[in-house]
């Protein structure tokens, strides 16, 4: 299982990287934890790999007003431990603990996970849950793509072929916000049969905000808006949460899988939504 012949470039500017991406059959290489296995299996065989390692300005973690901006090449292990992320993006910190294993997170990047758009991945679900956005740069300049528009299908995103994901943006969490992530997988770090990320903000004794997105339920991360609407304004009791989570599977059409029948996946969606929201609610208090 060795990669096919390929070229490699490590440009030192974003413009150079964009130029290379546009010039031929090229793929961006960040951490490589998703891409290199595909290269080894020869399921991907680009002519050129454009490594972002030497492009400056892509590895920042900083606040921009009410938002947190995380650069594309920030390593997952660094993000996991970052004090700013823990403080203002608890859902990111929580979800990162579930991403693969430490050996993957030492190399994998925030941008890479988002751009790869595996429906069974945690970070895309977080971005969708928080109504974050993707900052992309291409030959025509920079644009912001809302998370709701970004994930378009199995491993498919709104990124144009000559665009590079340079950062993600998410709203900083309000006070009294808790985050939860629950995955049903047979082995920790394994592909989840289904999972959920949830963030709950309390005000007084009411749920002021609730964000829930499902991992691995369909071909892309999906927001469970009906669950959220049922939670907001409620007291967030176990009964409220259970009643709300019962809606998690509404309207979902799961991808076929020999080990995970559709009915079961839908059932899991309701279970993980409930458990993730319970976690988030407990931590918000």
């Amino acid at each position: 299982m060795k990669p096919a012949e390929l070229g490699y470039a490590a440009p030192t500017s974003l413009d150079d990287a964009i130029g290379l991406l546009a010039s031929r059959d090229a793929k961006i290489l960040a951490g490589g934890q998703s891409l290199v296995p595909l290269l080894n299996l020869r399921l991907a065989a680009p002519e050129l790999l454009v490594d972002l390692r030497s492009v400056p300005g892509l590895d920042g973690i900083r606040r921009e007003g009410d938002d947190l901006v995380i650069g594309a090449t920030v390593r997952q292990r660094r993000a996991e431990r970052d004090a700013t992320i823990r403080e203002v993006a608890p859902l990111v910190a929580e979800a990162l603990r579930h991403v693969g294993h430490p050996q993957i997170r030492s190399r994998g990047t925030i941008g890479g996970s988002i751009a790869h758009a595996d429906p069974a991945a945690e970070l895309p679900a977080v971005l969708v849950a928080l109504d974050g956005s993707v900052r992309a740069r291409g030959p025509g300049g920079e644009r912001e793509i809302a998370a709701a528009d970004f994930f378009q299908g199995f491993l498919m995103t709104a990124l144009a072929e000559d665009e590079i994901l340079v950062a993600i943006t998410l709203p900083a969490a309000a006070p009294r916000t808790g985050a939860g992530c629950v995955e049903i997988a047979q082995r920790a770090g394994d592909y989840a049969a289904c999972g959920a990320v949830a963030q709950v903000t309390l005000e007084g004794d009411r749920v002021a905000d609730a964000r829930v997105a499902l991992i691995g339920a369909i071909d892309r991360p999906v927001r469970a808006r009906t669950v959220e609407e049922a939670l907001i304004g409620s007291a967030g009791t176990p009964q409220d949460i259970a009643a709300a989570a019962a809606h998690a599977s509404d309207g979902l059409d799961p991808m076929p899988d020999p080990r995970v029948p559709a009915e079961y996946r839908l059932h899991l969606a309701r279970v993980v939504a409930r458990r993730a929201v319970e976690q988030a609610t407990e931590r918000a208090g």
Partner: protein
Amino acid sequence: MSSHTIRVTVNGTEHEATVPARLTLADFLREHLDLTATHLGCEHGVCGACTVLLDGETARACITLVAQVDGAEIVTLEGIAADGEELHPVQQAFWDRHGMQCGFCTPGFILSTIELLREHPDPTREQIDEALGGHLCRCTGYVKIVEAVDQAAERLRAGSGR
């Protein structure tokens, strides 16, 4: 064929080589440097047999292209105790507690254990599972691996190792 000149430090020794762009770090270590303790069990980043320390952190050499790590410092199992040197307490513990059978997965386990104990000198079972969850062993059933980790932790805390 696209080739690149890279410079890496491996087990304290600097190397410069011109290699194909598609050469993995694992194959660079194994074929170019004859450091064969980095094993290939799957070549898709799951089994952990290829684990090395890359700039101080465990990483999978089979899904890293060597071109990506130009300038890096790499430590393999061969760098832990050179010939004639005393075994590292983690290595010693794997011996004492029968934490290995065929030895194929062992290099990865040892490096991840060293990293774990550096960060958590008195690890909980959860922390051990987290650090070693990315390593597959088909021989031992993991029980004696955990015993080895516990023994190594104790010895390191007692200061009877490095």
